[in-house]
């Protein structure tokens, strides 16, 4: 628990004279996947499928002599959230950067396919991943595409899938695409959601293209505030488990249709952004072009102040997330 959150916690208690919300004051980013999961769902409600005791680890890592994990870096199961029956998965960023290998991916696909069969109220993906695990590259790539198809199948069936992103490793690569296929994306202001990591882009096109050590640049290009302002996230929350929990509960029963009309709006939103975006790759001119007031000040604002500034574009209001 960091000092500021602890203070908020106490203020909340004093102000309302009620016990703190579940997970309040607990940093989402600082939690391990299992800590996050345990504090996020209703207390004691997580029932894990293929737990570490099943010793299901990656045979490919073993062949390479790389340490494996008995859950292959992801915990899956059922739980309740505010009393609603949900399926959950939490990726562990500390293990292979949350990278998706054959077993890890199959656990996610199995969970999603089971949701199609058992129809829980929602599926919650506590995503933290660099994408395909390069140690088992080919299998990881196919696995990610299987996860993606399984998510889309749930969309079609009207079972909401929510991606929750706020871990230190962000959500990138194939998992970045998967999260963007979900019904809703809940992102913290310190979370990052993108495709290629800045290091990969710098390695490919040089430091002038993307200086991966410039943290401010990294966050205004891929961070939670930017994504939320552009309409790429449903909710922008503080780095706090209770905030994620509240947002997930709020959006739990709000699926996004996958039909022609919805996808036409999505298309219009993305095409409009591409057309509005001034030359270059800087965020503030794009924010200004989208109608964000005082765009230059955005990086200094906290999440609460920022929520007032989302552009009132019809496309962002109607569309997508």
């Amino acid at each position: 628990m960091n000092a500021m959150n602890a203070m908020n916690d106490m203020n909340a208690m004093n102000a309302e004279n009620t016990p703190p919300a579940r997970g309040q004051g607990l940093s989402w980013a600082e939690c391990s996947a299992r800590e996050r999961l345990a504090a996020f769902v209703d207390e004691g409600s997580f029932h894990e499928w293929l737990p570490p005791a099943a010793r299901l680890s990656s045979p490919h890592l073993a062949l390479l002599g790389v340490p494996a994990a008995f859950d292959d870096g992801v915990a899956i199961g059922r739980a309740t959230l505010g009393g609603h029956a949900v399926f959950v998965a939490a990726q562990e960023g500390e293990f292979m950067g949350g990278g998706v290998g054959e077993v890890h991916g199959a656990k996610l696909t199995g969970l999603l396919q089971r949701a199609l069969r058992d129809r829980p109220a929602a599926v919650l993906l506590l995503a933290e991943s660099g994408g395909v695990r390069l140690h088992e590259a080919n299998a990881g790539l196919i696995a990610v595409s299987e996860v993606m198809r399984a998510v889309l199948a749930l969309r079609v069936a009207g079972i909401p899938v929510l991606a929750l992103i706020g871990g230190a490793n962000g959500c990138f690569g194939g998992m970045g695409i998967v999260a963007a296929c979900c019904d809703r994306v809940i992102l913290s202001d310190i979370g990052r959601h993108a495709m290629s990591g800045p290091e990969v882009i710098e390695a490919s096109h040089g430091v002038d293209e993307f200086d991966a050590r410039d943290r401010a640049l990294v966050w205004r290009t891929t961070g939670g505030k930017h994504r939320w302002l552009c309409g790429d996230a449903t909710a922008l929350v503080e780095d706090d488990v209770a905030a994620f929990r509240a947002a997930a509960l709020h959006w739990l029963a709000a699926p996004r249709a996958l039909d022609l009309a919805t996808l036409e709006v999505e298309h219009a939103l993305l095409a409009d952004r591409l057309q509005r975006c001034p030359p270059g790759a800087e965020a503030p001119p794009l924010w200004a072009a989208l109608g964000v007031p005082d765009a230059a000040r955005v990086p200094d604002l906290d999440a609460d102040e920022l929520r007032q500034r989302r552009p009132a574009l019809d496309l962002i209001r109607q569309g997508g997330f």
Partner: protein
Amino acid sequence: MLWQDLCTALFGAEHAVQADGDFICGEARLDGRPITVFGSTNHAAVGVELALRQARVVLDTVAAHPGRPLLLLVDTQGQALRRRDELLGIHRAMAHLGSCVELARRQGHPVLGLVYDQALSGGFITSGLIADACDALPEAEIRVMRIPAMARVTKIAEDRLQALSADNPVFAPGVGNYVAMGGVRRLWDAQAPGGLAQALRDALADLPLQDERARLGAERGGRRLAASVIDRVLAAP
């Protein structure tokens, strides 16, 4: 193979498929039946713009031509590695393309992917790998990364990776490995009776309605665990 030669082999000279930069699109006919052909060429880096152009083709086909098959021609070096594309939300544009293909599938459009040249990582996930099935020409190249790059990233000696890849398709590039793992359904044989046109006819005739890749990977021995892990999750108490 050049996309022009491929299209001529598939449809004769009468097709209307054209390239505009890295983007390929147009209508063709197989046995008189119209098909929407789209995809990329020049080992395209798929950025926001190219993803949206492809999505547009899918949406237009769904809106105007119910049930018409879609043939997705794959030649990509992967996603565009540009800061501007990240700023613009390339992950969302690629997810949108995938969602459009899913919509087409659900509306009864057969969707076939064909890797005719090169397929890499992010560009492949939202093209061939999102189709009902993805086939390939035997000379196609498919990978996430080459062995030397993989050795650098994983800090594992190149010769060791090379040796492991001799009998484990997970590690090494190659279209045959993707067949063994179920990611590619089958390779087309231009020398077989009927040539590539017959291969296309056959491919469209038996597209799976469900994602069969994990099962194929298990049957072919290239991806032994995925299907059984999925089954175990489905059966877990």
